[in-house]
């Protein structure tokens, strides 16, 4: 069966420090991969998605970037964190396009920038 791993679960980082969050999927090939952010008490905002290695689509201009170095690995990065980058970051995967493409989410990383 397919599983998604996301780490770390919590992270406290100072303003101006770099960030790297990693997400990996097991049990499937060529998944679509997604990064979402949820600010406190708010909804989920799509940040990036990828339909293949090296293919990244950005939804919202911001202080973050994403990379997909391997088929089932998706990384969210920042060179210098801002206070506004605090939030709950969720990785997700799906397979295919169109109908029958259910999305599944990881456990999330709670990032606090201090």
């Amino acid at each position, binding site marked *: 069966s397919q599983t998604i791993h996301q780490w770390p679960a919590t992270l406290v980082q100072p303003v101006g420090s770099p960030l790297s969050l990693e997400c990996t999927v097991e049990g499937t090939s060529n998944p679509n991969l997604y990064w979402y952010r949820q600010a406190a008490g708010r909804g989920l905002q799509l940040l990036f998605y990828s339909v293949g290695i090296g293919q990244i689509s950005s939804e919202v201009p911001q202080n973050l970037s994403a990379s997909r170095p391997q088929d089932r690995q998706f990384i969210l990065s920042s060179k210098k964190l801002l206070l506004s980058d605090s939030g709950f970051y969720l990785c997700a995967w799906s397979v295919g*396009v169109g109908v029958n493409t*259910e999305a599944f989410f990881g456990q999330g990383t709670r990032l606090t920038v201090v």
Partner: protein
Amino acid sequence: GIQVEQSPPDLILQEGANSTLRCNFSDSVNNLQWFHQNPWGQLINLFYIPSGTKQNGRLSATTVATERYSLLYISSSQTTDSGVYFCAVNPSGTYKYIFGTGTRLKVLA
């Protein structure tokens, strides 16, 4: 882009009560999912329902794609049903999943 609105934004129920949550979307979609976000932030898949009706225990969902809405029914609510309920849609011709605004449910014992 597509707009996804959920209502009501907040809902307080007494244990045992029934409720209906609504999700409206502004454009055609390939599919629609309902999630429950628990107090720890985990998103639990409830239903994958691009059209029609599905039931799972005390929960059921109906999507009328031609009229661009979906409903989530919770019967005989329990305190463990508390949390935030989101619908998410996959707009036609895209790979994206766009989330609704959410409904925060609190079930009182």
